[in-house]
């Protein structure tokens, strides 16, 4: 992936995550704080979209957007701070595999 495409996708996923901010907050509170998704605490954040299909699309968008955004950000950090071609190549492959694994697990358990 060239630098411009990298930059463009990083921005695109950032915009997707911003648009899905309320849904992101519900998921964050649910995972980090252990708040059930149907908790009254989260109701105001979810009331804008109650249909199940819409909720699925929003959650999928947040998961996919987050994992891609994190992977791209991680690549930048690795490229800046990891030196040595072999170590860098290994780190980048590991990051991709971890991103894929994390997405699959979160998809299975949250959707």
């Amino acid at each position, binding site marked *: 992936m060239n630098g411009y495409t990298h930059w463009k996708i990083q921005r695109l996923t950032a915009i997707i*995550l*911003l648009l899905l*901010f309320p849904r992101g907050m519900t998921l964050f509170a649910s*995972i*980090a704080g*252990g708040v059930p998704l149907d908790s009254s605490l989260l109701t105001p954040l979810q009331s804008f979209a109650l249909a199940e299909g819409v909720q699925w699309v929003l959650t999928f968008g947040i998961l996919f957007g*987050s994992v891609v955004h994190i992977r791209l950000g991680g690549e930048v*950090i690795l490229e*800046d701070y990891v030196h*040595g071609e072999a170590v860098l190549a290994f780190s980048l492959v590991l990051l991709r595999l971890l991103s894929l694994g994390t997405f699959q697990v979160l998809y299975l358990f949250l959707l």
Partner: protein
Amino acid sequence: MCQPISPHLTVYKPQITSTLSIFHRATGAILGLAVGVAGVLLPFLSLNLVVSSGPTMVFFLDGTQFLLSHWNLFVLLGEAIGFTLVFSFYYHSLNGVRHLIWDRNRALSMEAVTRGGYLVLGLALLLSVGSFGLLASFGIFF
């Protein structure tokens, strides 16, 4: 090979701009790690439901309960991690908006960048304290 580490953190005098840029990376890394940890923990948390009746898991849960109720440092650590996560979430999101504004070639003067930096930092702290208080009132993180 043997390239200098980028950016050259040690030769710069800390400024609000560079400090907040480092914060943006650091909070991004924290959130990335948190998502990764969630990916690792979710299957185990689900497994706990199945094996929690076994003696080992009961012992483990009792031990955790004991630490939570008797060791204040452990509770404080949990709260610190919780607040760090909440702050990272708000800071990275708000500073991300600042980056998107810069990409539109807006607010790029030194004065605007500095003012925006303090604004983002203040807002993130304010929202974090508010959210943390709200979560605490529901007994979460405490």
